[in-house]
């Protein structure tokens, strides 16, 4: 099929899906009319656009500043980590914490510790940092080792390799990181506006509009946020597509191995590990010193330990926290497996049926930027307030980043790899089985790292909005009791739990390898 033909087919598919939405809305098929028809949403948006754009301006401002700051930090960090691998080891704890922190757990802490505007930009930047940093790292390491050897042979040092080779090789990966980072920045901005008492912003507009019980307004706000995020995504995706097609011809595209640490002196390893663990605590302590806040509201690491373990509050706090964890942890594990599975299925679909996937993509993006709080009535009316709604919300929160990485992974498979099977007239399914799935293995672990810690966020959101159980509910009730110790404790415990989930990836990787060996 021609390129033009492809575009037409994708367009027709999208139109069909939109028509189905309109039909379902008009006939009130979904949750007694809680899903409004698309036309109602768009007409209302058109009628109210004057009300929207100060909010759009404020959200764009917060999201772009967050995007800029988050990416600057991320790229600087990735380059430093690449030039001086030891820094990567020292900052590993900070990186993992920055990534795994559930935004809804950290937002109240940020609002307590910083002024509103700074808190909002910080949250957006925080959500941007990790996707770009990891993507850039993977890209910088993916440079063709033969070319690295060549530059070395001609006397080029690490800086020259970086400039001549690694940065260029990393460009597609960095841009794929931006694809995740752009919607994340918008989501972070909207979430922070929602909570922080901002006067303007789509999050503020959403909060005020929630009480009206008018789904078309809520969808209008959500779709506006989606449009902004989509713009960022589309820009990065277009750039990525260009550079990928340029690169594919010259780049074998096999990621270089992570620096080997097995031969290292045990003392050095232990010191680096200790540094990695202490670094986040040092930064936490330093930030509080700098912010100069009352110990009642701002808990230091020692303050949290006192609250949870040594102080007079310990036994009550532990009881409540453990009860909440017992409700939250099992469903988080189930949700994360389902989310990853869903991402893999979508990525396979994008390989086997790229047309259909391209048509589905805009709808997938909506799930990332449509604030879940606006969809709560729809979710509880369809899925109730039990395990189902929690799993659905968790999948919707986890799958997207993993999907983008996997789809990018499939796209990075060199065309040459397919030439042989193509020559034998292999079907798409056969190509999947013989080449794409085995080749995607390394990407699956990158994807898992992005998806796993997000599962906890999904579960906490569901608990906060729909089920009223577990850690998400404990966090909100603690706000009602002004239980600052618990607010900080939940933030810390949710980060630790996410780190734990993140550490599951190497286990999965190991299982994956032994699986391959046994064949």
């Amino acid at each position, binding site marked *: 099929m021609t390129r033009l033909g492809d575009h037409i087919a994708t367009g027709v598919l999208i139109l069909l899906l939109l028509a189905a939405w309109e039909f379902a809305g008009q006939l009130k098929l979904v949750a007694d009319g809680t899903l409004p028809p698309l036309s109602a949403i768009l007409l209302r948006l058109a009628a109210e656009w004057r009300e929207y754009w*100060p909010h759009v*301006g*404020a959200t764009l401002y917060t999201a772009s500043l967050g995007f800029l700051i988050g990416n600057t930090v991320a790229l600087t960090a990735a380059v430093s980590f690449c030039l001086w691998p030891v820094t990567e080891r020292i900052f590993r704890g900070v990186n993992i914490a920055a990534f795994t922190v559930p935004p809804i757990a950290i937002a109240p802490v940020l609002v307590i510790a910083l*002024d509103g505007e700074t808190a909002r930009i910080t949250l957006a930047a925080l959500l941007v940092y990790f996707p770009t940093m990891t993507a850039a790292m993977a890209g910088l390491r993916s440079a063709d080792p033969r070319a690295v050897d060549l530059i070395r042979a001609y006397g080029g040092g690490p800086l020259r390799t970086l400039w001549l080779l690694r940065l260029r090789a990393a460009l597609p990966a960095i841009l794929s990181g931006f694809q995740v980072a752009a919607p994340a920045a918008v989501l972070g901005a909207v979430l922070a506006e929602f909570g922080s*008492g901002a006067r303007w912003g789509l999050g503020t507009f959403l909060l005020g509009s929630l009480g009206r019980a008018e789904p078309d307004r809520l969808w209008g706000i959500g779709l506006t946020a989606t449009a902004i995020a989509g713009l960022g995504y589309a820009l990065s995706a277009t750039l990525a597509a260009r550079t990928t097609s340029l690169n594919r011809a010259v780049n074998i595209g096999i990621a270089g191995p992570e620096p080997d640490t097995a031969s290292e002196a045990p003392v050095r390893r232990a010191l680096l590990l200790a540094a990695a663990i202490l670094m986040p605590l040092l930064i936490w302590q330093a930030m509080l010193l700098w912010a100069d806040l009352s110990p*009642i509201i701002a808990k230091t690491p020692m303050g949290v330990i006192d609250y949870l373990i040594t102080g007079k509050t310990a036994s009550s706090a532990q009881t409540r926290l453990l009860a909440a964890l017992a409700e939250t942890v099992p469903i988080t594990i189930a949700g994360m497996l389902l989310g990853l599975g869903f991402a893999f299925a979508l990525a396979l679909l994008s390989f086997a049926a790229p047309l259909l996937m391209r048509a589905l993509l805009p709808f997938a993006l909506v799930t990332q930027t449509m604030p879940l709080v606006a969809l709560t*009535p729809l979710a509880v009316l369809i899925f109730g307030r039990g395990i189902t709604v929690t799993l659905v919300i968790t999948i919707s929160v986890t799958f997207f980043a993993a999907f983008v990485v996997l789809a990018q992974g499939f796209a990075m498979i060199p065309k040459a790899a397919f030439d042989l099977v193509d020559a034998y007239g292999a079907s798409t399914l056969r190509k999947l089985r013989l080449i794409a799935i085995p080749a995607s293995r390394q990407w699956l672990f990158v994807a898992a790292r992005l998806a796993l810690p997000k599962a906890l966020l999904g579960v906490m959101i569901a608990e*906060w909005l729909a089920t009223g159980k577990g850690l998400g509910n404990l966090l909100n009730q603690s706000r009602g009791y002004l239980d600052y110790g618990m607010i900080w404790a939940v933030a810390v415990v949710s980060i630790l739990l996410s780190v734990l989930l993140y550490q599951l990836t190497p286990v999965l990787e190991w299982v994956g390898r032994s699986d391959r060996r046994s064949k």
Partner: protein
Amino acid sequence: MPLMTNRRRFLQLMGTGAAAGAMPGFVSRALAATPLTMQAAWINDAEFAGYFAAIDDGFYKNEGLDLTYLSGGPDVIPESSIIAGKADLALTTPDTTIKTIVDQGAPFKIIGAQYQKNPIGIVSLAKTPINSPEELKGKTLAVPPVNVISVEALLAINGIDRSEVNIVPYAYDPTPLIKGEIDASLDFTTNVPFTIEQSGEKAVSFLLYDFGYKTYNDTVVVTEEVLKTKRAELVAWLKASRAGWNANFADTASYPPKFASTWFAGTGRTIENEVFFNGAQKPLMEHSGGIFTMDAEGIAANIETLGRIGIKATPDMFDTSLLEEIKG
């Protein structure tokens, strides 16, 4: 602070200068006036109409105050703002404030009460009405997580076992109530019945206050430090704010439309809703001694109510001496 300036400039570039300029607390600073900052409990709505009226009509300025008004939101804990020194006074819920004084030794004083009767209540549809705590048995009630403490108190006071009511989170949107997914929700009775009637249903509600949960709401709270150093300013604030509320209540339909392009611009809510809110809150706020009055009977009722849920309030947490100064 530089960030805020930048953002305002940015918004002005985007053409919303009018909106930003309409926040007098931020922009128009009289040189002679003493700065004072208040932290509200929620986003801009009729709950704070009296303060907006007092700002717009120059009541704070006349008292020598340059008031900065900070809006609230779900993640903003008003008490945090005064502990952190971001604000001099905050509007709070008395149960959380007093619990923090008791449990954590927070240095707070309550110097006034905006609502004599807490406006939170149980709202249900008229076709399936719930008119008393007793009728909540076996029903699903949506409650914002921060208010679960109040509902548990209501149930305890009325001798109902907590396990007999299915409490689920309330996520600000009344749609599940209108669609019958839940039987009732806890909300400001001054607010949500309007939305329900807009959707073509009829709403019924009862106040927690009327079934034994006799607390104030939007209590005016300061730290002991601010009470010591800014006493004159706080008295001036009470005086100007009372004047603002009196002006606003002279005709509850008159002020909200005036704020349509300023305080209420872009909040996502309707002016009709604010007018309804303003009318409904008037009887909950008025007192023969004037707005913010805390009389002995009211303080005793708060202490008794909180005592029933294990929060040991004492009369010295309420400081009525500032209100004494603005009598008459």
